[in-house]
């Protein structure tokens, strides 16, 4: 009995041991490889290889933007967690900064403040909760113990010392490069905490290093390396920095890159449940990456093809995978971004920038290749230096007067003034309302109101007398075009203007591109809460009133005249190439091209008139064009002097622009648009100089130099480039100094408000046809004498500046171009 039970016990023990051995065999021999693989997988390290952002080149292949090698400082996630979790000062600093930015202005909201405090505390608590902090500390201590061969108690002290040192070092580096380290670290922590919550476990990003300071030059890196010897959890990684060889030239077209914002990352990045870790690391924006924001950098960051985003300028990271340290298992090279070739000729662009700079006023020049519709140059002055933008950011962004960040050529709409008169004529001809021989009498005004006042006066008070098409264009007779407007009526007139590209986006796709304003019945109802007024057709026919266009639209409309009535949408992107020169699979969008219903002889008649503007002694630009060096080429053009309300800034800080605010600019916008050469046009151009006064006196000489520059660059088929190969960097230095912010030439002109108001008021009350349109003044506050219209056109784009043409509220003097 006892022996039997002993045997049973023995059997039970052996059974237990056997179970252990069998289980052991299953785990170690049968599935051992799987477990080994899993362990190796967990230990496998991956080094990410940064890719180069694509280059932007001009039409001749000159590099406008490229990536240069630099270094960046990366910080272990554990480091971040440890410093935030243990940093008692961190919360204090967060709240202090909040107080500085919000509370200091006197309207701190206690609820918001408490919410922020809770968030700060939650972040700290989350950081403290994370195992990774402990794991990181343990790993670092183990490494220290191995390297220094010291005892466990000493290791802890040494770890604390080195951690404090590293924290200080990172803080100094961040300060040096203008990075708010607390903010960056808090952001990283919150982001991956959220990811971690989203997937319900720790994400791999929580074991990685994250870039906290980017764009460090070789100098600071070399100085840093010896200091890093004692640091924990910090490393210097290779990275890239965007470099713009031409600095300020074509800055608005090229555009800006900024460090990636959290909202960008949230918008574009793949989440852990959408892609594998490696895919995410390759394709996502990581901290310290740059993203294109404006201009071509923003436009061709990535483009959407068939519903999916294909990177263009944006690079894809590669990676090198290590099975164990030093043993490369797999290398996937980084994919550089594609090269975007612009239609811009940087040489011409540079010359024109200098030209506009020498005028001393803000403005814009656009030059379009007539045949292809390619934009050869598109200048907006003032400019800023792309390379130093980050340093000058505050000054640039807060310059309310000069608005250096505004891309005037495509993003600002101005009253086009008389530059649209040839188009009005073409509309009349094309609609069959007039013939080239049709003659209207200009008595110096359009009609006499019941009160006896002469309404819609011509700029020549004495009147032009009988005016036919050529004379109308040549001498810019307002009454002639008003009468064409009367014949066409407003809807048909605006329809024709629409055919020339007004009121629609030109289609370059540049961020901020505006369609301008072209009134239609629907637009007026939606934005002005009224229908067409009788005066609209008269205003629109001479490029005023409910009519605003960008310089690019004006230049392109004139290009349509030069093509004898063929409209081609302008483009700034020539093509997109892969790194090795092949044309990439992503293409810029197709150009819109439409044949306008205009007879060639009508277009030629208008062209004759535009030729006489310059080359007939009675032309509005004749005297100004004749002065200076002869050009050697005959051109066609049209002056424009657009009447606009003065530009004001919100000087009393009440958040809206009223007549009480300070006037910083006033006068008429000077326009000159046209094409050259006269018989076989190669280029079309538009010159706009803001608040410069007469278009003939101020814009035409600039336009002449524009043509001269185009001849020199070889775009008129006659001249060769005078200076041979262009040296961009040389002129860059000059330009960098020629735009002094707030300098004399661009200083706001203070105009006494009372005087300003008096003039405007008098002019308006004298000219507004109130008797004929009794509801006009009430229905449209803009016509009331004291309320100088300040509602900006670009207000729709949220810019809030009062520097735009008035819409339907015009100081009724009609046209003021001087012959």
């Amino acid at each position, binding site marked *: 009995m*006892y*022996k039997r039970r002993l045997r049973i016990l023995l059997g039970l023990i052996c059974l237990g041991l056997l179970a252990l051995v069998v*289980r052991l065999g299953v*785990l170690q021999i049968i599935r*051992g490889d799987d*477990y080994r693989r899993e362990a*190796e997988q967990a230990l496998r390290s991956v080094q990410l290889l940064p890719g180069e952002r694509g280059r932007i080149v001009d039409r001749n292949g000159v590099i406008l933007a490229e990536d240069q090698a630099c270094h960046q400082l990366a910080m272990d996630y554990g480091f971040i967690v440890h410093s935030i979790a243990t940093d008692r000062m961190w919360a204090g600093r967060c709240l202090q900064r909040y107080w500085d930015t919000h509370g200091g202005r006197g309207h701190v909201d206690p609820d918001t403040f408490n919410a922020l405090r809770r968030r700060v505390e939650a972040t700290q608590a989350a950081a403290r909760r994370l195992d990774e902090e402990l794991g990181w500390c343990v790993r670092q201590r183990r490494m220290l113990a191995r390297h220094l061969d010291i005892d466990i108690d000493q290791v802890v002290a040494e770890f604390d010392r080195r951690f404090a040192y590293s924290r200080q070092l990172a803080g100094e580096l961040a300060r040096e490069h203008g990075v708010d380290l607390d903010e960056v670290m808090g952001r990283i922590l919150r982001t991956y905490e959220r990811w971690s919550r989203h997937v319900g476990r720790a994400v791999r990003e929580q074991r990685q290093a994250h870039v906290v300071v980017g764009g460090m030059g070789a100098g600071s890196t070399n100085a840093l390396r010896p200091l890093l010897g004692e640091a924990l959890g910090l490393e210097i990684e290779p990275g890239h920095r965007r470099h713009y060889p031409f600095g300020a030239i074509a800055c608005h077209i090229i555009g800006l890159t900024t460090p990636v914002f959290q909202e960008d990352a949230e918008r574009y990045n793949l989440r852990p449940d959408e892609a594998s870790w490696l895919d995410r690391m390759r394709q996502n924006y990581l901290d310290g990456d740059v993203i294109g924001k404006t201009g071509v950098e923003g436009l061709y960051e990535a483009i959407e093809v068939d519903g999916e985003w294909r990177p263009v300028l944006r690079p894809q990271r590669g990676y090198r995978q290590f099975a164990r340290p030093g043993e490369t298992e797999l290398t996937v090279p980084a994919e550089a971004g594609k090269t975007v070739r612009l239609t811009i000729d940087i040489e011409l662009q540079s010359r024109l920038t200098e030209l506009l700079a020498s005028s001393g006023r803000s403005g814009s020049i656009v030059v379009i290749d007539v045949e292809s519709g390619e934009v050869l140059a598109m200048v907006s002055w003032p400019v800023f230096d792309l390379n130093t933008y980050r340093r000058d950011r505050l000054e640039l962004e807060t310059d309310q007067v000069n608005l250096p960040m505004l891309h005037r050529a495509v993003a600002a709409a101005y009253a086009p003034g008389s530059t649209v008169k040839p188009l009005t004529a073409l509309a009349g001809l094309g609609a069959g309302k007039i013939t080239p021989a049709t003659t209207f009498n200009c008595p110096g005004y359009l009609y006499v109101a019941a009160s006896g006042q002469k309404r819609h006066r011509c700029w020549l008070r004495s009147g032009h007398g009988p005016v036919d098409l050529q004379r109308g264009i040549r001498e810019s007779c307002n009454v002639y075009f008003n009468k064409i407007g009367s014949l066409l009526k407003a809807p048909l007139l605006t329809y024709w203007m629409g055919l020339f590209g007004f009121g629609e986006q030109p289609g370059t796709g540049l961020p901020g591109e505006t369609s301008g304003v072209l009134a239609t019945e629907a637009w007026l109802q939606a934005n002005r809460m009224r229908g067409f007024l009788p005066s609209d057709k008269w205003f629109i026919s001479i490029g005023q009133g409910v009519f605003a266009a960008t310089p690019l639209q004006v230049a392109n409309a004139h290009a349509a005249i030069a093509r004898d009535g063929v409209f081609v949408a302008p483009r700034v992107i020539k093509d997109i190439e892969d790194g090795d020169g092949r044309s990439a699979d992503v293409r810029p969008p197709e150009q819109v091209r439409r044949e306008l219903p205009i007879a060639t002889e009508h277009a030629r008649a208008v062209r004759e008139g535009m030729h006489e503007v310059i080359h007939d002694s009675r032309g509005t630009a004749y005297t100004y064009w004749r002065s200076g060096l002869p050009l050697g080429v005959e051109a066609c053009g049209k002056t424009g002097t657009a009447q606009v309300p003065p530009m004001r800034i919100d000087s009393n800080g009440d958040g809206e622009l009223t007549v009480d605010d300070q006037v910083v600019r006033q006068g008429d916008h000077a326009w000159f648009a046209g094409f050259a050469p006269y018989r076989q046009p190669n280029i079309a151009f538009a010159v706009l100089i803001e608040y410069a006064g007469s278009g003939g006196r101020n814009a035409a000489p600039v336009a002449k130099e524009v043509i001269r520059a185009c001849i020199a660059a070889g775009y008129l088929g006659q001249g060769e480039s005078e200076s041979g190969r262009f040296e961009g960097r040389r002129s860059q230095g000059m330009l960098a100094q020629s735009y002094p912010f707030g300098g004399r030439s661009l200083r706001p002109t203070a105009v006494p408000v009372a005087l300003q108001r008096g003039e405007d008021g008098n002019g308006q009350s004298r000219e507004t046809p109130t008797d004929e349109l009794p509801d006009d003044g009430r229905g449209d506050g803009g016509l009331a004498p004291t309320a100088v219209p300040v509602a900006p056109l670009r207000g729709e784009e949220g810019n809030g500046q009062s520097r735009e043409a008035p819409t339907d509220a015009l100081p009724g003097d009609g046209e003021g171009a001087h012959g």
Partner: protein
Amino acid sequence: MAEVRWPRYTGIIIALAMCALIGVGIAAVRVSERAEGTRGYAAKQTIFAGVGLGAFAICAAIPYPKFGRAAYPIFALCLGLLLVLGVARYLHHSSWLLPAIRGSHRWINLGVVNVQPSELTKLGYILLLAWYLRLGDHYRHLLGLIPPLLLTLIPMFLILIEPDLGTALLLLPTLYVMLFMAGAKLRHLLGIVAVGTVLTFLPVPQSLGEMGADEQTERRANAYVELDGTVVTALPLAIMELHQLSRIDGWLHQGREDIWQGKGFHLRQSKIVLGSGKLAGSGDWDEAEYYFSRLPDDHTDFIFSIIGGQWGFAGCLGVLALYTLILLFGLEIASSTYEPFGRLLALGLVGLLAAQVFINVGMTMGLTPITGMTLPFISYGGSSLVVNCAALGLLVNVGQRRPMLLARRPFEHREDMRPAPYRPLERSSSGTACEKRA
């Protein structure tokens, strides 16, 4: 009184196997020490091993009946210490003398070392039970099983409230081995097991009212049914703490990947470390050590995983073989000892060791749920090592002294004896008829 042949070969082999296991333990602690970047554990373990060998020698040298006579005072001392800890726990008292570590009141600080009374209790309990069961056959009646059960449940309860579930549960298999070998009726034992099982699955309603959200989820997941605001769960699950529940959950669903990162993380890491050792271990695989650092508690409860990872299947087999050696020779001692106290003592010690090895090793590979229990002789920890050495000392002690027996063989109960088969005119070579029929 005792017939002493010194040294007997069983004792020597057990002692050698024990020393080998302690050596393996120190080596494994060193591996985990390198992996974790900590220092001093292996050195301390070596000192403990010295103390343990001393305890082994003392326990082997003093004639074991003296321990038997001291069984009641020793057990009373153990209960007293446990009671002190229990009171400390009840009062949430934590001081230098009675530190609360990770919420558990298991230790008494004696200045140089923390002593675990529960480890000592295991030994005292076996001594007492062997002393109690050595005479008579009252445990062959159902009512006679009540005193030994009570003697088990009292220390179990005290250990359970420390809380130290692993050690508490260890007393049950020990009790069963001893009762079984002492000759308790199988139907009684199985009946108690059946009642226990029924009790285990007994549905108990539990109100969710005052629980936190986490706890509610956890309780719901393990419930039989849920009626509004009340869950009905198995009795032990209703009593268990939250972390114990989640461990059970992680063990039951160890194949599910979503469990690996949370509840099943510990077990998964253990299996990866163990499995990645493969046949011969990861001797040439440099990162193994680095991976070991991802296994929590790797120098105490999960030391077997480190052994598996470092020395592979061969190493594990070797360690298990050493345990088997000790267990086999322990059984040999039990079978060849006729003195009842010595026999029961040896059986209890063997049962305790076997249960510990099975539960701990099984836990590292997912055979048994994770309970905080050390692997004898190998896990880092002074109390465990010294007590286990002392236990083996007692075992060897029994093996060395085989008192003359002037009575019937112990635990050969008359009712169990079947009448001898009729063997006409056969001359028996040796032994008595009783012995032959056994």
